[in-house]
């Protein structure tokens, strides 16, 4: 397996869906190729970083307006409950 072949199989490897026969060649390439090993680590870290990231804060004025409009809609839907 060349470094280029490894790139093509990267998704399946990172997602744990790689064919076992390909996986063996993939891992034996990684064992002898430090740059590819780092790239695989980097990809995993990149995904973790985006997944773990703190969410955006809603603009304060929009947040107030959203609450107000949802409360109004709720009143119409459950007139007896609010």
């Amino acid at each position: 397996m060349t470094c280029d072949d490894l790139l093509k199989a990267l998704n399946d490897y990172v997602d744990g869906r790689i064919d076992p026969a390909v996986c063996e060649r993939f891992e034996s390439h990684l064992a002898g190729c430090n740059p590819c090993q780092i790239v695989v680590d980097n990809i995993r870290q990149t995904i973790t970083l985006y997944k773990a990231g703190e969410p955006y804060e809603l603009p304060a004025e929009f947040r107030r307006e959203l609450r107000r409009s949802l409360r109004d809609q709720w009143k119409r839907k459950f007139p007896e409950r609010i």
Partner: protein
Amino acid sequence: MDGNEDGGLVTRAKAGDYPAFEALISKYERPIYTLARRIVGNVEDAEDVVQETFTSVLEHLTDFREEASFYTWLSRIASNHALKLLRKRRGLSTVPLDEEAVSDGRDLPRPEFIAPWARDPIEAGKDPSVRALIEKALGELDEKYRLAFVLRDVQGLSTEAAARALGISEGNLKVRLLRARLQLRERVTRALGDEASRVAPPSDHEETRHDDDVR
């Protein structure tokens, strides 16, 4: 996101308890706004998506059968609204987001800046400057790559579900996802990689043809 503990709030909200509904909004407004921002790419459209999402949820709450977690249901509604808005903006309401040929991978962007990260990704993600950097990098991706990455890697949709949401084939989704991952890796590693430990790209990355190179 684990939303299994929402059952009680959902039950109360379905019965018309507004404080329970408001508690659900408080809990999820930020993740939903973030999802919307990442899909549509700007504040105004993201606000519209959030408004439409919670309005839909309010209208259809009694139809929610609680087979999936509340957050899964909510985020599906939000991504559908966000994708619909993207399509509407382009005047392509019935046409799927463009399909591209599934290449053999020869034209993939090859890694250039290769270095182990100096920081743990979870810790780094708490740093506001890193947050700004990763959102900028995501915003600068081509839309088709950005959407594949957000739905599949950030939201955790299956390949099949993400492909269906985008109206493209699974093969196409995989190609887009790989390009997104490679491009984001490059951008983020340039910022977070440890320069002192940087290594040169492998030699067969620098040339175009090494089919019989056995390593």
